[in-house]
Each structure stands twice: as C-alpha cells, then as structure tokens.
C-alpha cells in the first residue's frame, strides 16, 4: 500500500520539478495575498484602529493552508481527467483510498511549503511572528488541513459525477466557505442566522481560536476540540459521500466517459 501511495505522490511531485505554474500556486499567489493584507494591516496600525489587527496576517496564512489542502485533491484529479490519464489510474491495481491519500499528502506538503514561506515573509516585512504563541497553533493548522481534505473529497466526487460542468467548484467552493468561516473578522460580525451555519464549520472555530491565541498568547483547548470534532464528522461525511458518488459514477458509466472523451 505504502509503495503505491509513494508512486502516486511521486507522479505529482515530478510535475513541480518543471512546472512554473505549480510553483506559482505555492509561491506567487499566497505571497501576493500576504502583501496586500500586510499593507492593509500596516495602514490600519498607522491610523491606530483600536484592537489587534495583526490577526489579518494570521488569517491570510491560515486560510492558505485550507485552500492548498483542498486544491491539491481537486486539481490533481481534475488534471488526470484533462490529460485523459484518469482511466490509466482507475485500471491500475490501486484503491481509490490510496489515490485520495496520495493527493491529501500532496496537499499537506504544499500547505507546509506555503506556510513556511508566508510565515518567513510576514516576519521579515511586518514583524509578525506566527510562532509567537508557540507551537500550540500547530493543531489549528492541522485542523484546517483536515477540513481541506474533506471539502476536496466532496468537490472531487461532484467533478467525477458531473464532469466539466462542476469544474468551477474547484475554485468556487473554498470561496463559498471563506465568508462563513470568519477568516478576517470575528464570528459576531455575521448576521445571527449565518452565525448558526458558520458554527457548523471547523474553519470558523479555527479562526476564532487563532485570533484568541494571538490576542491572549494562549490556546483555548475547548475551541480546538470543537474544531477537531467537526472535522471528524466532516471527513466521515465526505468519505461516505465520495464512496456513494463513486458507486453512482460506476453505475452510470461516467468514469469511462470522463477518461475517453
């Protein structure tokens, strides 16, 4: 099992050796995000907006973890469809779970590389130290990674089922989640009905927890536990949804159509 996952991971890592676009996805866009929000933060500090505003930078770095994790799954498999390689993978003696696990690991590596780079730049340019709270923030990052996998799995299931018509979801779903996750503002800013929905998302608790940690210097373990509990539920539901959808895809013959047309 391990060697098959390693082979799949190798297949995706080979791409990064010569693809400028893929390296840009890790470096350029997240850095541009960081710069924009960094300057906004610097401006807000200069005009002496009350309260800590550095959490905006934390939001940018944390959000990228979720985004990278989700995109690694959806883009990797979508590229197999675009390149008409998906059938080669589905007729190889690998489990679908191995394919998903390989893309999840790719997402973790991407998120790790991106987080390290953004943290370094945020420290150099804005004197923002992500590690100021210590490594207690690491479980929050892990939580975002897990939710990214769950969202990636659901998006992937829809792409396998609906093909090109669903490809916009790769970029759309994370940005549908972003306003509800209270990435750059506290949950209390949202209207009451949306707060109830937002509380169902692990990301909301992660960003609330991150702001609290940056403000007080300590991590609220209750928030962390809530995020993890919701992640377990999200991953379970996403796995069930993916398995059910894959069954439907096999029944309807969509897999062959995706791979050969």
């Amino acid at each position: 099992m391990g060697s098959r996952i390693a082979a799949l991971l190798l297949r995706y890592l080979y791409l990064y050796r010569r693809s400028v676009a893929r390296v840009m996805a890790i470096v350029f866009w997240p850095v541009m995000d960081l710069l924009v929000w960094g300057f906004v933060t610097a401006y807000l500090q200069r005009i002496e907006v009350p309260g800590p505003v550095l959490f905006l930078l934390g939001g940018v770095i944390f959000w990228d973890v979720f985004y990278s994790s989700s995109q690694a799954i959806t883009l990797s498999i979508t590229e197999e469809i675009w390149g008409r390689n998906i059938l080669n993978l589905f007729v190889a003696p690998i489990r679908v779970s191995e394919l998903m696990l390989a893309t999840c690991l790719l997402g973790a590596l991407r998120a790790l590389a991106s987080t390290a780079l953004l943290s370094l730049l945020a420290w150099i340019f804005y004197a923002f130290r992500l590690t100021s709270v210590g490594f207690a923030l690491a479980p929050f990052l892990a939580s975002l990674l897990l939710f990214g996998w769950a969202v990636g799995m659901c998006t992937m299931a829809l792409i396998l089922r609906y093909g090109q018509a669903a490809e916009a979801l790769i970029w759309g779903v994370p940005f549908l989640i972003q306003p509800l996750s209270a990435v750059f503002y506290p949950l209390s800013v949202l209207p009451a009905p949306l707060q109830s929905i937002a509380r169902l998302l692990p990301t909301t608790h992660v960003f609330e927890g991150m702001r609290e940690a940056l403000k007080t210097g300590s991590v609220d373990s209750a928030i962390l536990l809530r995020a993890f509990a919701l992640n377990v539920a999200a991953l379970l539901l996403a796995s069930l949804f993916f398995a059910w959808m894959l069954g439907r895809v096999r029944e309807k013959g969509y897999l062959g159509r995706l791979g050969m047309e």
Partner: protein
Amino acid sequence: MSQPPVIEVRDLTKRFGAVAAVDGLSFSVERGRIFGLLGPNGAGKTTTIQLLLGLTTPTAGTIRVFGLDVARHRRAILQRSNFSSAYVSLPSNLTVRENLHVFARLYGLRRPQRRVAELLELFEIPDVAKTVTGALSSGQATRLNLCKALLNDPEVLFLDEPTASLDPDIAEKVRAILRRIQRERALTILYTSHNMREVEILCDRVLFLSKGRSVREGTPREVLEQSRAESLEQLFISIARDGDLRSTEERS
C-alpha cells in the same frame, strides 16, 4: 483436459435508462488467444471493455477473469492484466521514463529501470526516454501507451483500438510485437479495432456486436462462412448498415 477460459462473460447486460448498451452478452476467451471485439460505433465494445475492467457496474450478468468475479476481486485481476487505448494518454507533462517509472511502481515492480529500458527498446523508442510525453508524435505516444500496458507482464491485455493513430509501417511492427509476446508468454488479448484487415491478421476469434448484442462469433473464417461475406470489412459494413444480422436473416 481443456483449461478454463481466462475471460468468461455470461448474460452481461448494461442499461443506461431505457437504452441497453450491452444486452445479454455471453462469450469466453481462452488463454493465449487474441479475441477481437468488433462492431460499429455505439455497438457496445467500449462499454463491454469498461465492464470487464470494473470501471462500470453491470445491470445483470457475470464477468469472471482468471476464474475470479470482477465485482469482488477487481484489484487482484487488475494486478495481472493491463489496458491501453488510443483514447487514453499518459500525463503529457512527465517524461517518458518518469511516466513508466510511476506506473511500474503502481504495479508493484521492485526494480523498474530494467523493465522500462527493455520495453522502450522493444517498441523502438529508447531515444525518447527523457522526452516530455506531450512532445511525442502520435505514433510514439501510442507505443509508449503499449509500453505502459506491458510493464507488469500481464496475462490479459485489453487493447482498445491500439493502432488507430499509427502509420502502416509502425502498425505492422506493433502487431508483430503483440503476436510475438502473445505466443511467447501465452498472453490473452481482448482487442477492438475498426481495421478489419488487422483483425483478420491478428485475431484467433472475433465477436461482432450490434446494439449491444452478439450477432456473429467464431474464427474470422467461420464468421465469413456463416455470413457468406467475402471479407470482414464487408461483414462489418453489413452489420453497421443492417444492425442485427440475425433479425435481418429471420425476416428474409
């Protein structure tokens, strides 16, 4: 005592809503034979291959490969078989060697380098090993697909129009290679093609499909005798135009 068939299909049916893409299909393929699955576009060839590979689930019927039920032992079957199609490609942004290396590892080869080199040599494309796959000519890409399909030294090979994009010279070389491997390794091949001349040269048995149903089965010579056709090409055209030959014959 005769050996059990490597591929055994019984009463296979696949419906998509009201349409039967495959309708009560039964056939078997013995070890070391090249079996041609033929018919016009939309006859059900590709759906049948997808059912045999477990990519699509059947509505009814059974498929056994190596005596194993495809629905329950799919991975074990796939470990011993492989697939290549003119309509499926390897990732265009990896080099030839990288692609083969990845798939060799997916099929569990411990030291893939030697096998990769052997196959590139066999298909006369060793000079493109470091070339990005997207830069290959269609003939080279087809031969690369066949290299991938032979990586795990399969016992059964599913080939969907493998020579569709090859010039006559390379197509002839590919057929010769497949014939040689089939004889040396007793490889079983399920083959689809629209090139009836190729089918006559290569296939031990053929099955003509029309609207998901079997309308002729036997050796190329037998089906020609049954149909009183002069060539498989002529028979193919008759089936494509008249549909189900049996119902045509019954009416006459």
